């Protein structure tokens, strides 16, 4: 689910690719040295690899966390591919796609010099299961690997070696075998997540591990203070020869949490600091400065963040059980207005469907409702209303998080547009921190009569299932923390997901195109935006490019001009 990565993303408004970092590498260089100064208005959630969920933390973790696989440090589509990192090669998939076997490289070590074994990887995976202690991170591994065992995590493990998770085997110190219950083409992506990184059992400090996680990458954590920042220095036990992805150019990387984003922007523009690593883009004041100044503009990028902004129409709430009423809302909306509400073109392209660019199977031009024309279609809306049996409109409630200003603004925009066709929408701002129990509870949605829900979504990993399944697969409906707000449970769509799971990413893509179309035809969503951010970087940075897997400048290679 993208909700967590997206926590801060909304504060950003964004533009167009001005220079190449969104398309290619700029300032390619191998020069070493210097201090890379990263700032962020948002603190890291956890440095602990099993607990981190913020996108920018995953980016930072490229400095000190290695997992079996990792996204390649390449611009464009290549960056979305998982390639071997600690593993010698891509997994060997056998048993009808249900068994994944990997071998570790030689010479990979923890920062204390201990060689990394397959047990350490398994232990890392097991830590994910200890949600009672180590909450916060993604739990896909539990879903796939628990297989009814109810494994409680290593702290409550009865196995003397704490190696009680049955579905993962370590026949020797180099080999690790994952046994899935059913085929899953996305498993490689999960292996590329920091959750699958090794942790030395003897060095595990449980909940406090986040303060000093043991490094496996080019840098190690020198200091970390919650709310303030961290510094990373070179890890002498990292062998660049084992690492085809990371360059490890700066001598030192500092991460500073600021509370004043405008101050941060100013430092950024003046060259004091290198990068706002949260990746949500500059604030309005700096944005306008950049857009007005060609010199600044050339150091700025306006990449897709991988997010989509949308309204969802729960079909359990009347009259949204009627497709015509849903269509009426879609037609009545003013896409341009919605885009402006989010911050204008720099904040995203008008979105017409539910698969953002970059996700395999997406088609940006697919526009069944003519949304990219950017105009409200009142006549069609009225027609739809008539067809729905509510020619004079109806009343409904828009649910919106109170802590996301642009979402509130889009809700207001929609409200204003709907009013023109006679639909009276009330805006209900709920406590954004509680969304898993407010809009995440179908029962509550029904009770409150939320006919329209404003949300944003980004995938944790770059596949059509990673993106779409939680939103539209009926089997993903949960009593709490639900993301399938429309409550669609269509056997056909569910079936398509099942089939796609057994295919390779390339083969699966057309299935997702199809799912996307099915969903759009049902008029379940009103997409607002394919999200973009206006990101400025210090011109002294080298090897700058956006990794599409994170939607952020890839820290694995960034260096400083000497």
């Amino acid at each position, binding site marked *: 689910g993208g909700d967590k990565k997206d926590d801060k993303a909304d504060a950003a*408004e964004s*533009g167009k690719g001005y220079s190449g970092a969104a398309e290619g590498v700029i300032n390619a260089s191998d020069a070493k040295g210097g201090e890379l100064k990263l700032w962020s208005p948002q603190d890291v959630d956890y440095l602990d690899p099993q607990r981190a969920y913020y996108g920018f933390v995953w980016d930072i973790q490229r400095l000190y966390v290695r997992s079996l696989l990792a996204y390649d440090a390449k611009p464009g589509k290549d960056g979305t591919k998982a390639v071997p990192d600690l593993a010698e090669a891509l997994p060997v998939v056998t048993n009808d796609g249900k068994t994944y076997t990997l071998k570790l490289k030689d010479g990979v070590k923890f920062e204390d010099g201990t060689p990394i074994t397959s047990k350490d990887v398994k232990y890392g995976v097991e830590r994910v299961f200890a949600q009672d202690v180590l909450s916060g991170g993604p739990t896909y591994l539990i879903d796939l690997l628990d297989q009814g065992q109810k494994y409680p995590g290593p702290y409550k493990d009865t196995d003397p070696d704490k190696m009680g998770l049955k579905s993962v085997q370590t026949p020797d110190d180099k080999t690790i075998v994952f046994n899935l219950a059913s085929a899953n083409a996305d498993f490689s992506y999960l292996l590329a997540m920091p959750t699958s990184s090794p942790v030395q059992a003897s060095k595990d400090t449980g909940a406090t591990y986040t303060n000093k996680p043991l490094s496996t990458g080019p840098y190690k954590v020198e200091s970390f203070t919650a709310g303030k920042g961290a510094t990373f220095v070179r890890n002498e036990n990292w062998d660049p020869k084992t690492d085809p992805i990371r360059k490890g150019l700066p001598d030192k990387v500092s991460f500073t949490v600021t509370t004043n984003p405008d101050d941060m922007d100013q430092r950024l523009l003046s060259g004091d600091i290198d990068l706002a690593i949260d990746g949500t883009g500059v*604030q*309005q*004041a700096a*944005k*306008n400065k950049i*857009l*007005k100044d060609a010199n600044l503009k050339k150091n700025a990028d306006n990449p897709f963040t991988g997010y989509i902004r949308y309204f969802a129409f729960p079909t359990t709430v009347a009259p949204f059980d009627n497709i015509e009423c849903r269509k009426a809302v879609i037609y009545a909306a*003013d896409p*341009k*207005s919605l*885009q*402006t*509400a989010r*911050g*204008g*073109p*720099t904040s995203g392209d008008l979105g017409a469907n539910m698969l953002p660019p970059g996700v395999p199977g997406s088609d940006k031009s697919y526009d069944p409702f003519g949304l990219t024309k950017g105009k409200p279609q009142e006549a069609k809306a009225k027609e739809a209303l008539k067809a729905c049996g509510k020619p004079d409109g109806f009343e409904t409630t828009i649910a919106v998080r*109170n802590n996301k200003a642009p979402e*509130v*603004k889009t*809700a*207001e*925009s929609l*409200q*204003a*547009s709907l*009013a023109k066709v006679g639909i009276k929408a*009330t*805006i*209900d*701002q*709920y*406590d954004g921190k509680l969304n898993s129990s407010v809009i995440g509870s179908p029962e509550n949605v029904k009770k*409150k009569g939320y006919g329209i829900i404003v949300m944003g979504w980004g995938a944790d990993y770059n596949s059509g299932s990673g993106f779409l399944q939680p939103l539209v697969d009926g089997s993903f409906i949960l009593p709490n923390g639900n993301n399938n707000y429309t409550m669609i449970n269509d056997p056909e769509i569910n079936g398509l997901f099942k089939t796609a799971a057994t295919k390779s990413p390339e083969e699966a893509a057309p299935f997702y195109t199809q799912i996307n179309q099915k969903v759009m035809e049902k008029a379940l969503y009103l997409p607002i935006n394919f999200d973009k951010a206006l990101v400025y970087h210090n011109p002294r940075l080298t090897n700058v490019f956006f990794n599409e897997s994170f939607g952020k400048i890839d820290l694995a290679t960034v260096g400083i001009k000497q």
Partner: protein
Amino acid sequence: MTAPLHDTSAETPAPVSVADVPAKAIEGRSPGRIAWMRLRRDKVALTGGVVVILLILVAIFAPLIVKLLGHDPNEFHEDLIDPDLGTPLGSLGGISSDYLLGVEPTNGRDVFSRIVYGARISLIVAFLAAFVSVVLGSFLGALAGFIGGWVDGVISRLMDLLLAFPQLLFTIALVSVVPNSVWGFEGSGVRMGVLILVIGFFGWPYIGRIVRGQTISLREREYVEAARSLGAGRGYILVKELMPNLVAPILVYTTLIIPTNILTEAALSFLGAGVKPPTSSWGKMLSDAVPIYQDDPMYMVVPGMTIFITVLAFNLFGDGLRDALDPKGS
């Protein structure tokens, strides 16, 4: 008996002693009338008063005014906004003959109508919260001061306690705790109700203290004693003897608590605990202006100055009223 020796009134211009002069005006000049006369001479306070009345009229006739001079406050006009920058097209925040105070950045709503409608929120919240504070404060303050003893003890402690609470924080917290719909009421109405109750509730100890102090000092006056010596009970003394004398301080305090409430409401809206969108509110406009004020200063200036002028007007009027009602004043 003591009739004047000589009736000198014919020749003596305005002697101080009324007894010696046959009554020309039988009607006495009540303290209220005197205050009003004094107030009428205070041009500054009158100006404040006129502005206050204008504001109230604006709030009452908001729909009419907007119909005549503005646009629907919730209508978007993106065509007036620079899509990249989000700022209004045109200079000075898009001020034009059509949009008297410009338009909102991002969505182009008519600032003028939003200010006009915002006056409703500000004034309703401020007045009703003042009403709550004044009713609670006068009642409990008078009770504490008049009865004394343990009643006073309990009420005074309560006031101390409330004053020890970090009020703004508590108000924000309470406002955000209260759910959206209460007893069938929904939306902005509920939020306003909560704002009124909470602001009003935290405001009463201030007036409570004043009224209590006044009551204690009035209680010792000889005319209270006189009433008692005529057989008056507590109720009579409180209602007939004390209350009329408490009216002046209460009135003054009311006019002075209203601007405070306006500021509090604006501050709460500013901090995100005010009324809900799309209802317009001055404080909300200011907080919306924060990220963009370097590019669109007008959007900050308009609500800021509106709040300023409103609060100033109430303060001027309240100050003048206080001077006019001050028994020591000349």
